[in-house]
């Protein structure tokens, strides 16, 4: 990925992410989040993570976000009124967040030490990022976490059903 494509895409991602937290209406926030996820999927493609990019759109943008929008529409939420009394916290959080980001980026670019590994310039092997490579790793080295995740999903489904069910009288 050349700087010419990276920076516009990164700027779009940041703008969309800011839209998530600054929009007053939940639906608009949700759509900004969808845009963020979609643009991140494009970023993943440039990082040779093709399957992850597809999963990002299918699972995140296609299912999780739609659930968000569905709930917002179901509850018919209106736009929030601006809240004056929380202004101090807003300023404090923004300043602290800005400082954290600045410190992190500063450390990242000035530490001098190179990140280990061949780097993003090295050509990846043909298989890299493919479903075969990811599946192989998933079902050999990560097979126990995989099984545990399956149980976790089952528990989540049960929990969601129990929580959302109307009380039967």
């Amino acid at each position: 990925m050349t700087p010419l494509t990276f920076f516009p895409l990164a700027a779009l991602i940041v703008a969309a992410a800011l839209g998530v937290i600054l929009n007053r209406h939940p639906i608009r926030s949700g759509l900004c989040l969808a845009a963020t996820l979609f643009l991140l999927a494009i970023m993943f493609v440039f990082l040779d993570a093709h399957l992850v990019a597809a999963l990002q759109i299918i699972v995140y943008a296609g299912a999780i976000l739609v659930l968000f929008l569905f709930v917002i529409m179901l509850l018919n939420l209106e736009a929030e009124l601006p809240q004056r009394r929380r202004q101090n916290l807003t300023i404090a959080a923004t300043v602290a967040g800005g400082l954290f980001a600045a410190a992190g980026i500063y450390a990242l670019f000035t530490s001098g030490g190179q990140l280990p590994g061949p780097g993003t310039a090295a050509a990846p092997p043909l298989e890299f990022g493919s479903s075969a490579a990811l599946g192989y790793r998933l079902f050999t080295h990560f097979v126990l976490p995989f099984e545990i995740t399956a149980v976790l999903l089952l528990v989540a489904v049960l929990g969601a059903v129990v929580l959302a069910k109307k009380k039967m009288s």
Partner: protein
Amino acid sequence: MVPATYYLALSIVLFVIGAVGFLIRRNLIIMFMSIELMLNAANLAFVTFARQQLAMDGQVIVFFVMTVAAGEVAVGLAIIIALFRHRETLNADEVRMLRW
């Protein structure tokens, strides 16, 4: 070629946006979305490291993060619906029954 540090910087910015959003917004759904932003920032970092090291492990972990996020959203939204049924509000400041 853009070095991995640029991607990581973007990841930090995204994470901070998510964290700040979680702190400044009081609407539970938007707070929830901010958490998703933070998770995605982490995902970007994982994918970047996978590319940097040319090892698939980073991408596999993203797969797990997505699965956990899906489960988390299912339960979380169910809690939000149940809460809205009882309290008619999604403002985190007004939900303070269990707070000291």
